[in-house]
């Protein structure tokens, strides 16, 4: 059966240390890793703010954030495309700070936009799940704003962890946007997902499946490492 063929092929690819595969995996990890870093840096503070403060327009921001979780990647891709395209408002400037289309940098921008609402939304939920009295307790002990936020985050660690895991999942598995702004150029912007689509289009389903298995193995390992780093939080 093809599913087994796919598995067998995956093992074979990994065992043989296929070089093309290596390049693709490295690029996938690099792009998704950096995008995850950015979206964590954006999403967690926003999530904390939404979880802690009550301000006018907060509900609107939350509704927008929720909508952001449903941003179709291809629309984000389109949007980034239009912005940084040669004829787009940013691309026109020709500034070296603005990445060109069909570069890993453009992919990172798109993936950051895709994953940060997830991270912000879940961080907000996790932070809101922490008893407000604990926040008061922490402030009473002399925490600065940042220390207080950090402590509450640490208390909500399962939720925050899951938010980062979900963010990682959303970027590593994303196709529409990286295809759109990255262009799936071999050895340059081809990542695992676009490679999978390519093989699928060629009708080479078992190879596509094998790449899929590699991708899943990769995120499984990443998650196990994450769980390890996390220590015993989940068993508490």
């Amino acid at each position: 059966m093809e599913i087994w063929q796919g598995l067998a092929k995956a093992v074979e690819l990994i065992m043989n240390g296929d070089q093309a595969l290596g390049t693709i995996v490295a690029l996938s990890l690099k792009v998704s890793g950096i995008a995850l870093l950015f979206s964590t840096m954006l999403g967690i503070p926003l999530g904390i703010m939404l979880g802690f403060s009550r301000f006018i327009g907060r509900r609107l921001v939350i509704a927008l954030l929720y909508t952001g979780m449903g941003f179709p990647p291809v629309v984000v891709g389109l949007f980034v495309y239009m912005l940084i395209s040669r004829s787009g408002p940013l691309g026109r400037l020709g500034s070296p700070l603005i990445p060109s289309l069909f570069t890993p940098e453009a992919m990172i921008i798109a993936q950051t936009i895709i994953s940060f609402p997830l991270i912000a939304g879940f961080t907000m939920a996790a932070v809101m799940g922490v008893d407000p009295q604990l926040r008061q307790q922490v402030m009473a002990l002399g925490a600065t704003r940042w220390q207080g936020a950090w402590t509450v985050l640490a208390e909500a660690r399962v939720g925050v962890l899951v938010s980062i895991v979900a963010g990682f999942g959303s970027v590593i598995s994303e196709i529409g946007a990286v295809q759109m702004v990255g262009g799936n150029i071999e050895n340059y912007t081809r990542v695992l997902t676009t490679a999978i689509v390519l093989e699928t289009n060629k009708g080479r389903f078992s190879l596509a499946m094998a790449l899929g298995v590699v991708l899943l193995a990769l995120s499984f390992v990443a998650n196990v490492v994450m769980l390890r780093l996390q220590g015993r939080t989940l068993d508490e």
Partner: protein
Amino acid sequence: MSEPIYQLRGLAKTYGDHCVVDVPELDIQKGEIFCVVGPSGAGKSTLLRLLNFLEPPTRGTIRFHGRDYGPLDQVPLEHRRKVTTVFQRSMLLNRTVWANVNYGLWLRGDRSSGALVDEALDQVGLKHVARQHARTLSGGELQRVALARAMVIKPDVLLLDEPTANLDPYNVGLIEDIVRKLNLDHGTTVVLVTHNVFQAKRLAHRVALLLECEIVEVAEVHKFFESSDNPRTGAFVRGEIVY
């Protein structure tokens, strides 16, 4: 006498149109043990939150270390760090007991050996639970850990909200000794909320009766319990209903 540590002027806190604290004028002296008594829901805990700058008042000001803090003022960190509270319902962090007691020091960037932490745990008789996880503590243990956590940061002002409610007679005595010692040795100002009239008698220099958000009487401890002018004070002490 030196300047009072707190000077409350026209201080009020309301939730909606429900008045919770309304203190036209009150001074708390540096180095005294000031006790607040009053029926459930009188506003005692709220008063402590105001004194710890955890909530802004609705009206009025608190003068502290030479500055007036009103509804819109940000209290600088250095002033906030001079005060701490042991809450009625203590919240421990989801960590070990030791880490909880160390937390205040950690916040202040104090990464020293932790001898202070061990000492504080020893004082409250909980050296043996130091490695235990905070969630596994009994009610009384929890309360003592919360006190130890507040002690290690050596605050100028210690706000205690029913610090012995869950303790047996021996431990009550232990905690009272600690509070007395802190007050004598370090000059720590203590504001103590308690329902234990005997405790108030044992510890306080002055006692205030809070009734439905207003301070009805403030007096020296002996005067308060033995020869109060206010009939309601007597009624409260006898366990009668007071309005």
